[in-house]
C-alpha cells in the first residue's frame, strides 16, 4: 500500500529528490462531516431554543428539551468542532512534518469510528440513555469506543511526528500534542464508572467528589477541545491566509506553557458557593483570573500577525472570519475570568449569562475559526474556485449579526433574572417570590435568541450550499497535493 511516498512525477525530477503525496482525502472527509454535523447540531440548537419559550415544541417522549439539550451540546462540540479540528490537524500536520500521515488505515478508522460515535450519540441521547454529566453524557459502551478511537488517532499522530522530515515542531503541533494527551486523560478520568447494565453505569465518585471530577473534566473539555486545538488551527491557518509569519515566537512559547499548566486548575470555578470546599473553589478562581494573561497572549499573537496585511481583509472572507473568531476568543477569555470572581459568579451562575458566555465562545471563536478554515480549504482541496464569494460574504454578515443577537439576548436575560432572584423589598421579603415571574420577564429574550440562532443556522446552510456547489464544479477526482523532499 502507498505509504509515505509515491513515485516521482515529471520528467525533470531529480533522482535525489522524493515526492511526498499528502493524504488529503481524509481531510475532505472531515470537512464534509464538519458541515453536515454543524448543520444538524445547530438545527437541534434552534429547536431547543424554540422549546424554551414555546413548550409545544417538545415533540413527545424522545424529543423533549431535557433529552435534546445534551444532543445539541454533543453534536456541536464533538461532531461539528471535533470534525473541524481533525480536518485542521490532518491537513496541517502533514504539511508541517513534510510527510504523509503514518497510516492511511488508521486515519480511515479514526474518521469512520468518530462518525459512528456521533451516530450512537444521536440515537442513545433521545432514548434517554445518558449519564447526565455535562459533555460526558454518553454511556459506558460508547465511552470505551471513544477511548479506542482516540488512542488510534494518537498513535497515528505521534508516529507521524516520529517519521517527520522537519526537525523542529511548529507551534501548531504543540497545541495538537496538548489536545491529544489531555483529552485522553480527561475522558478516562471522568468516565470511571461501573456498569450495572448494558446502558447504565454509576460513577465511582459520589457527591462532592463527583462534582469536582466532572468540572475538572467539563472545564478542560472547553480548554482542550474548544481552545487548544483551535489555537493550533489559528497558528497554522491564519499566517497561511495572511501570508505573514506569526507575530512573536517568544510569546507563543510563554503562552503555550502557561496555558496548559494553568487551565487545569480552573475547573472548580464551575462550583462556586456549592458544597465543594472553599479552598478548592478559591484556587479555581485565582487560577481562572491568571488564565486571562496566557489567553490574551494567544489572542494578541493572532491579530498582530496581520500587521501590514489589514488591507487584505477587504477581499478575503477567510481573514474576516478569523478576525471575528479571534476577537470573540479575546472577549470570552476576558469574560471567563470575570465570571470566576465570586461576586460576579453569585449573580451569573444558574442564569442565561453563562449561556451567553458559552455561545460567545462557541459561535464566535469555534464557529468562525471553523468557517474561515473551510472557506480557505475548499478551493485547495477540490482544486477549483470557491463557488460563490458573495455567498461567503453574506454568511459572514448573517453569522455575525446572528451571533450578536444571540449573545446580547442572553446577557440581558441573565442579568435581569439574576437581579430579580435576589431582589428584596424594604420589609425584607423577596419581591419576586414566584419563580415564574422571573421567567415570564425574560421570555421575550428567548425569542430574540431564537432569531439570532436561526440567522446563524442560515449562515451554516449557506456554507453547506457553497461547499456542495464547489465540489460539483471540481474535477471528478481531485489530486492530492504533493511536495518534493530530499530522498
Amino acid at each position, binding site marked *: 500500500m502507498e505509504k509515505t511516498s509515491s513515485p516521482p512525477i515529471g520528467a525533470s525530477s531529480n533522482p535525489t529528490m522524493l515526492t511526498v503525496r499528502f493524504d488529503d482525502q481524509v481531510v475532505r472527509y472531515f470537512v464534509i462531516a464538519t458541515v453536515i454535523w454543524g448543520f444538524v447540531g445547530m438545527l437541534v440548537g434552534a429547536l431547543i431554543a424554540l422549546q424554551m*419559550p414555546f413548550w409545544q415544541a417538545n415533540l413527545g417522549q424522545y424529543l423533549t428539551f431535557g433529552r435534546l439539550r445534551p444532543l445539541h451540546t454533543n453534536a456541536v462540540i464533538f461532531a461539528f468542532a471535533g470534525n473541524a479540528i481533525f480536518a485542521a490537524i490532518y491537513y496541517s500536520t502533514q504539511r508541517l512534518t513534510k510527510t504523509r500521515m503514518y497510516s492511511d488505515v488508521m486515519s480511515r478508522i479514526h474518521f469512520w469510528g468518530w462518525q459512528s460515535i456521533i451516530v450512537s450519540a444521536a440515537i442513545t441521547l433521545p432514548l434517554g440513555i*445518558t449519564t*447526565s454529566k*455535562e459533555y460526558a453524557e454518553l454511556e459506558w459502551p460508547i465511552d470505551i469506543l471513544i477511548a479506542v478511537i482516540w488512542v488510534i488517532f494518537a498513535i497515528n499522530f505521534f508516529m507521524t511526528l516520529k517519521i517527520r522530515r522537519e526537525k523542529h515542531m511548529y507551534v501548531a503541533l504543540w497545541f495538537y500534542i496538548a489536545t491529544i494527551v489531555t483529552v485522553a486523560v480527561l475522558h478516562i478520568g471522568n468516565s470511571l464508572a461501573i456498569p450495572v447494565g448494558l446502558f447504565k453505569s454509576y460513577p465511582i465518585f*459520589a*457527591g462532592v467528589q463527583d462534582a469536582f471530577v466532572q468540572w*475538572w473534566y467539563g472545564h478542560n473539555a472547553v480548554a482542550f477541545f474548544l481552545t487548544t486545538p483551535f489555537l493550533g488551527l489559528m497558528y497554522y491557518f491564519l499566517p497561511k491566509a495572511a501570508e505573514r509569519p506569526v507575530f512573536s515566537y517568544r510569546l507563543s512559547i510563554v503562552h503555550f506553557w502557561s496555558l496548559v499548566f494553568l487551565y487545569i486548575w480552573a475547573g472548580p470555578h464551575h462550583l462556586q458557593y456549592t458544597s465543594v470546599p472553599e479552598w478548592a473553589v478559591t484556587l479555581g478562581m485565582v487560577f481562572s483570573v491568571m488564565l486571562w494573561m496566557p489567553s490574551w497572549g494567544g489572542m494578541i499573537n493572532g491579530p498582530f500577525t496581520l500587521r501590514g496585511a489589514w488591507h487584505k481583509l477587504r477581499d478575503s472572507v477567510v481573514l474576516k472570519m478569523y478576525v471575528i473568531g479571534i476577537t470573540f476568543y479575546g472577549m470570552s477569555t476576558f469574560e471567563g475570568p470575570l465570571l470566576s470572581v465570586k461576586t460576579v459568579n453569585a449573580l451569573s*451562575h444558574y442564569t442565561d449569562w453563562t449561556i451567553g458566555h458559552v455561545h460567545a465562545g462557541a459561535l464566535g471563536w469555534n464557529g468562525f475559526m471553523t468557517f474561515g478554515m473551510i472557506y480557505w480549504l475548499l478551493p485547495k482541496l477540490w482544486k477549483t474556485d470557491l463557488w460563490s464569494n458573495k455567498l461567503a460574504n453574506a454568511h459572514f454578515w448573517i453569522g455575525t449579526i446572528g451571533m450578536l443577537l444571540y449573545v446580547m439576548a442572553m446577557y440581558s436575560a441573565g442579568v435581569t433574572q439574576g437581579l430579580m432572584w435576589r431582589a428584596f423589598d424594604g420589609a425584607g421579603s423577596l419581591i419576586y417570590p414566584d419563580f415564574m415571574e422571573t421567567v415570564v420577564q425574560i421570555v421575550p429574550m428567548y425569542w430574540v435568541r431564537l432569531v439570532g440562532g436561526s440567522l446563524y443556522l442560515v449562515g451554516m446552510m449557506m456554507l453547506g450550499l457553497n461547499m456542495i456547489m464547489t465540489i460539483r464544479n471540481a474535477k471528478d477526482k481531485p489530486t492530492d497535493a504533493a511536495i518534493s523532499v530530499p530522498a
Partner: protein
Amino acid sequence: MSSFLNTDGRHRTLEGWPLVFTTLTILAVLVGGTVEFLPLVLMETNRPTISTVTPYTPLELTGRDLYIREGCVSCHSQQIRPFRDEIERYGEYSKPGESIYDRPFLWGSKRTGPDLSRVGGKYPDLWHVLHLEDPRSTSPNSLMPPYNWLLSQDVNLDNLTAKMNGLRTLGTPYTDSDIEGAVQDAKAQASNIARTISASGGPQGLETKEIVAVIAYLQRMGTDLTKSQN
C-alpha cells in the same frame, strides 16, 4: 531566560524532541488536577457526616434514574447556595454531607426552572401527578415540558438488584436483605404513593407506573436534614 526563548535557544531544541515535549506537557497538565483532587479524596468527604442522611430506597433510586433519563437536570439545579435570597426562596443551603450517596451528582448548572433540592414535602403527591402530566395545569405560564408518558409507562424494576449491587460495591451501605427485598420494597412504596394519589381524587392504578417512582424521589429530596434521628 532569553537563551531559552530565542529562535535558536533551548526551547528550539525541545521542539526537536516530540517525546520529551509530550512528557513535559503531560506533567504540566497533571499537576493542577492532582493537587486539587488528592486532598478531597484524603479528607474522605464520602463518609457520612450527617447522621440522618441515608441511602435511597429502591423506588427512590428508580425515580432518580428516571429523572436522569428525562434530563430534568438540564433545567433544575439541586444545590442551594448560602445566600439570603436562595435560603428564603428554597430553604436551607446545601451541605456536602447531603450528596454522599449521589451517583452521579445532580447539582446542575442552569436554573431554567427552580431549584429542587428541598422540594420534598412541598406539594402533595397528587400535585406532582398533575404537574408532570401538564405543568400548565398547576403553574399557568410554565415552560416545563409535559411528561404524560410517565403516567402510562410501566416502571421497570428488573434491574434493581444489579443497580444496588453495583452501588454497594462502590460503598453505598445496602445490606443483603435490602437488596433481596428490593423489588418488594419498591412495590410497597409504590402502592402507598398510588393510594395517596387516588385517595385525594387523582387517577387510579398508578402503582405500576413510572410516575410513582419519580414522585418518590421528588418527595425524598431535602427531607434528610429535617427528619428525626431514629
